């Protein structure tokens, strides 16, 4: 099948977007590499703390006017923004594939999910309404209204370069705040396009800013007294030890959505073919690089025949997955984002073998569809007889590795699942309502799937997370995001 056209055709040095201007950075310039072709597609600056400070000043300067802009007027800009996102839907999707490596279907899904958050934020005139009580005492009325806070920082991860900043950004600006987005320096092009479209939509200068970079920018964001809050999606060590702690020290609001090790419980009464198809998407979709990807399959029951037949179907389906460049529409799994991530997955395969797990499908042996270097590619890997407390069975791998384990009954499956320190997106596959209800009640997980392999909440629900998968109180998306980006002002009124 012919490749879809690549939208990025020439290598450009990306600029920061500060105060409505595209500004060259003085920082070091690093390559952005397409992991399928290993070709450089852009050069991105690692901006300095001074450049971040300039963005904060621009965002602070824009804040008073933007706060005074009526919610209806802000929503009109968001509606224009949404229209522009639709017009650029395919371009945005192909950029994601080009810079991240995911398949075009996955990228289009990511684009759509991002736009849905803009659509929800368009409802800000009603979403941001407060409440009032008349006569709380004789002749005294009292009301509570959500008010914006100022400048927020948004730290984007590499695995969803377009969508994840959109879990926060539309709500932050809709509520009257101004923002500075720091995209992942591995995948910055998506956020450049988004900022270009924000500019075209008519956000006033300084409302929407982008500063490229790495640790220096993150540290500057966490230290800066002008930043009122930070949203972050990334690993648990960074989320807990850096983002959450530092925001606590500096008194910033924080949402830190972190790592995961998601368990999929498979009951013997599940719809087998549908479950297997869901497993392919959940374990191997986005090449396993999503915090809602399943990692462990817990097959319930002592029926060896069911177990063998089911696992046989899973291995057969995974063996057929087409691997290649995501702009080839027939490809079902793209590469990992970079060589280091592939090395990490390879290391876990070795760890699994050394821990005594049995390798049913070896992702080290694979065929790439098309003529591409194998630097970042790897095939689906399946282990069985994995101990839940082993490193393979308990640590986040962030790659296409399935670990199969068995539980004698549902209680044991839930015990195994809850013993893991993460609690992001566990799921159950069953035809029994009673089993599903028992599972969702007892499993400790921010997002729970019932016959759903990727438990990604739609934009008007919070993207939850529990235990070591989340640090904070409120979550991104929907009403919780509105609350995160506003604080309650209570007015008590009496007239003489």
């Amino acid at each position, binding site marked *: 099948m012919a490749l879809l056209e690549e939208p990025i055709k020439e290598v450009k040095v990306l600029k920061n977007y500060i105060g409505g201007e595209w500004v060259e950075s003085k920082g070091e310039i690093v390559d952005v590499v397409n992991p399928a072709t290993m070709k450089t597609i852009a050069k991105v600056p690692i901006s300095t703390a001074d450049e971040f400070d300039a963005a904060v000043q621009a965002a602070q300067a824009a804040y008073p006017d933007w706060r005074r802009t009526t919610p209806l007027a802000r929503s009109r800009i968001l509606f224009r923004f949404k229209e522009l996102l639709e017009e650029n839907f395919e371009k945005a999707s192909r950029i994601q594939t080009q810079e991240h490596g995911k398949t075009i279907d996955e990228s289009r*899904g990511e684009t*759509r999910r991002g736009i849905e958050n803009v659509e929800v934020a368009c409802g800000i005139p009603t979403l941001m309404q407060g409440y009032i009580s008349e006569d709380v005492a004789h002749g005294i009325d009292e009301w509570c209204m959500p008010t914006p806070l100022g400048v927020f920082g948004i730290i984007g991860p590499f695995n969803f370069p377009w969508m994840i900043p959109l879990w926060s950004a539309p709500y932050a600006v809709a509520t009257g705040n101004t923002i500075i987005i720091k995209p992942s320096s591995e995948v910055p092009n998506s956020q450049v396009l988004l900022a270009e479209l924000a500019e075209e939509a008519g956000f006033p200068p300084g409302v929407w800013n982008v500063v490229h970079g790495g640790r220096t920018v993150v540290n500057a964001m966490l230290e800066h007294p002008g930043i009122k809050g930070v949203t972050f999606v990334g690993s648990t060590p960074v989320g807990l030890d850096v983002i959450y702690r530092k925001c606590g020290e500096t008194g910033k609001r924080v949402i830190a959505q972190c790592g995961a090790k998601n368990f999929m419980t498979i009951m013997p009464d599940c719809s087998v073919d*549908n479950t297997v198809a869901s497993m392919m998407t959940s374990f191997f979709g986005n090449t396993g690089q999503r915090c809602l990807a399943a990692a462990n399959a817990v097959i319930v029951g002592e029926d060896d025949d069911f177990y063998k037949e089911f696992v046989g179907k899973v291995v057969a389906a995974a063996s057929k997955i087409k691997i290649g460049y995501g702009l080839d529409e027939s490809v079902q799994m793209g590469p990992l984002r970079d060589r280091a991530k592939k090395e990490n997955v390879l290391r876990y395969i070795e760890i699994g073998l050394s821990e005594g797990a049995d390798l049913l499908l070896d992702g080290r042996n694979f065929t790439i569809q098309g003529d591409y270097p194998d630097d970042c590619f790897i095939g689906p890997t399946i282990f069985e007889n994995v101990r839940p407390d082993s490193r393979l069975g308990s640590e986040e791998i962030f790659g296409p590795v399935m670990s199969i384990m068995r539980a004698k009954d549902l209680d044991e499956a839930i015990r195994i699942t809850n013993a893991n320190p993460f609690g992001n997106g566990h799921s159950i596959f069953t035809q029994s309502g009673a089993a599903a209800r028992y599972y969702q009640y007892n499993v400790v997980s921010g997002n729970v799937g019932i016959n759903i392999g990727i438990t990604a909440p739609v934009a008007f629900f919070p993207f939850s997370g529990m235990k070591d998968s989340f640090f904070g109180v409120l979550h991104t998306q929907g009403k919780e995001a509105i609350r995160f980006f506003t604080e309650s002002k209570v007015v008590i009124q009496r007239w003489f």
Partner: protein
Amino acid sequence: MALNTCSEGISFARELEEAAAGMYERLAELFPADAETFRGYAAANKKNVSNVERAYFGVITDALEGCYAFNIEPEDYSIDVSLPEGTGRAEALAKALAVEETMLRYYQVAAEQSKGLMADVPRAFTLVARKRAERIEELKSLAAR
């Protein structure tokens, strides 16, 4: 090689529609008496593409099985839209009928296999299949005239 991804399934539908539209435009030139009907078919084919694509782009999500939606052998749905010089009306209509029947089968299978996706996608395929069935009846009566 089998079509597996949603993107492939949609692109294949577009290929079929565009090829068939080209055939109807040629038929309109060859048989002026029925030109209006054939041009209408060609226009409707283009509309089918935009309806199916609108449904797909409008609801695609990374959370469902987009990369594993289909298992369709494209060879089973290849269509012959060639109209060599001297093709008579009866022969041309028989060819158009064969094209439509093949496309009807494709849309029916695509609707069935995409049931696991958001409802808009199988609904769009079903709608086009229904229109195709109606067109088949029209072509049959055209051939009988």
